[in-house]
């Protein structure tokens, strides 16, 4: 068999870089075997680059390997994934409405003087994360489990990438703690060992809407300010 080693090496490099999705200990044991299988498949199909579906698949399973050590069982992981989906979606919706869609925050004269205000009117890079997350949730509750997993895995990566990415383009971003938290919730939800059963999809949607509604309704006065009732003289 004649092998073009330079081509083989560059193809291998293109595939190997995606294995970073897996934790180092897993890569040390399994990376070469997985890569060999992946390259065999690519060669059989005449490809020199991974497909989008293969990359999404690798991101989901790489994240799952990272999440697995801290969850004692598949059942705990499944329940945590459901909670992560609901809480993360509520947080995303609240951040979108309160932090991006409402008019810019105008504090009372003298209040927070000198403090920079970065709330409202699409003022941060947050929507780059919020939109794929919300599409993922819609996919999850409509039964498109594979698309939901891929979008949640992508959301996890985007949340982390926004931290250096926003700085590189000198753009405002949501707080680091918020982005890291969403990255974690997205990873948990994307790597659930089982898809939500059809009978669970409506309750998930209802719980998400209720929690999101509560956060937004209670959050709007926090952002826009509430005038305390006048004291009787």
């Amino acid at each position, binding site marked *: 068999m004649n092998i073009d080693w330079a081509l083989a090496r560059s193809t291998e490099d293109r595939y190997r870089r995606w294995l970073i999705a897996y934790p180092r200990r897993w890569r040390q044991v399994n990376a070469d075997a997985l890569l060999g299988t*992946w390259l065999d*498949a690519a060669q059989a199909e005449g490809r020199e680059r991974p497909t989008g579906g293969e990359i999404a698949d690798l991101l989901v399973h790489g994240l799952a390997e990272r999440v697995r050590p801290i969850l004692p069982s598949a059942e705990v992981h499944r329940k945590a994934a459901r909670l992560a989906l609901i809480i993360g979606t509520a947080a995303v919706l609240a951040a979108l409405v309160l932090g991006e869609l409402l008019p810019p925050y105008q504090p009372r004269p003298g209040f927070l003087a000198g403090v920079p205000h970065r709330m409202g009117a699409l003022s941060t890079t947050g929507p780059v994360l919020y939109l794929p997350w919300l599409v993922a949730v819609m996919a999850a509750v409509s039964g498109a489990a594979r698309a939901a997993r891929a979008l949640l895995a992508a959301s996890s990566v985007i949340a982390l990438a926004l931290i250096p990415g926003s700085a590189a383009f000198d753009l405002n971003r949501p707080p680091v703690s918020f982005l890291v938290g969403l990255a974690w919730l997205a990873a948990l939800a994307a790597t659930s060992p089982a898809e939500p059963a059809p009978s669970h999809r409506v309750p998930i949607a209802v719980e998400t809407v209720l929690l999101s509604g509560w956060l937004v309704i209670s959050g709007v006065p926090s952002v826009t300010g509430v005038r305390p009732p006048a004291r009787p003289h």
Partner: protein
Amino acid sequence: MAHREVREPTFYLLTALAAGRRHGYALVQEVDELSGGKVRLKPGTLYAALDRLVAEGSVAIDGEEVVAGRLRRYFVLTPEGAGVLGDHAAQVERAARVALRRLRAGGATT
């Protein structure tokens, strides 16, 4: 033996290994063929399933070799895995027999 849930991709993986040791890409091909193109395993999914089956004791790693600069890891079905596959196949067969009997009793043609 405790009943273990066997999903479709796992069923085809175990069935592919029932014929002997296989490496990763051979399993991808064989699962595709056995399922009539319905189950197409991507590398991430394949290795996640194999990791789980090895941890459960249904499958074991059976050596590695380097072919054209690529590592090939071989897997075999363990006696426990053969038991899991046999139990599941018998269960599916029983369910299919019941369904066919009822269809015939009800006058439906098959």
